[in-house]
């Protein structure tokens, strides 16, 4: 099976295109996202890569949002069930934690590209 010149060129072009797509689709996913906290009609945006603790004022009191090691979570909140405190820390774009009684909404805003939970072919 003798391969001729343009066969090799065709395969090379194919590999180039595949690499191009790979870089475009898979790289640049580790850029640090931002946490958006919304409460009382106001909005705050903090980067995920700087540790901080914020007391977010709501109608019931202060919801404590902590950003640590690239993740954000609710440490304490004046609501009766504390569901928001039990929710796991968020770090990926699209994830969110909300305290409905205290009207606090915390979410991660990331790259424009859609993050996916799982890929199967």
């Amino acid at each position, binding site marked *: 099976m003798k391969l001729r010149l343009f*066969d090799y060129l*065709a395969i090379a072009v194919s*590999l180039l295109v595949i690499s191009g797509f790979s870089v475009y689709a898979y790289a640049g996913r580790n850029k640090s996202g931002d946490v958006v906290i919304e409460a009382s009609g106001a909005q705050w945006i903090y980067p995920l890569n700087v540790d901080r603790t914020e007391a977010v004022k709501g109608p019931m009191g202060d919801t404590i949002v902590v950003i640590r090691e690239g993740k954000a979570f609710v440490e304490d909140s004046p609501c009766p069930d504390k569901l928001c405190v039990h929710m796991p820390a968020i770090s990926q774009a699209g994830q969110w934690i909300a305290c409905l009684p205290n009207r606090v909404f915390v979410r991660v805003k990331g790259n424009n*590209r*859609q993050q996916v939970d799982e890929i199967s*072919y």
Partner: protein
Amino acid sequence: MIPKPIPFLRVGIANLPILLSLDLLPAPLLLLVVLLKVLGQGLIGGTLFSYVFLFSAVGSFASGLSMLLFRRLFGSRISLVGVGVLGALFSNTAQIVLARLLIFGEGAWLIAPPFLALGTVTAALLGAFADRFAARSQWLVSAREIG
């Protein structure tokens, strides 16, 4: 007829008549074969009035036209392996773009590399088979004489 678990393989083999006819048929007739392939697959698979048909049509015509072009352009400096690889590249890229626009949005790019890689490999294999078949087949010789 070949079991569904490997749908892409089935689609690949359907390109065999196209590859073999590249040298046999004039352009309009070749494109007619492509159309028949698309309609035939749509009818048998029951996908005639669905998104799948659109993908099939776009992919098949993209590959059919590009394979015609490259075969005529490069002549004996390219074999059916290269032609097939380029045809698969054009077909699959066109389908990815269509998927980006119609169905998946930005998520379509995620499946592009494995999809294209698989397409390249199967196209190369199919092209190699087509080349060997064309070299050895007596049936093909008689087909050439008819044309």
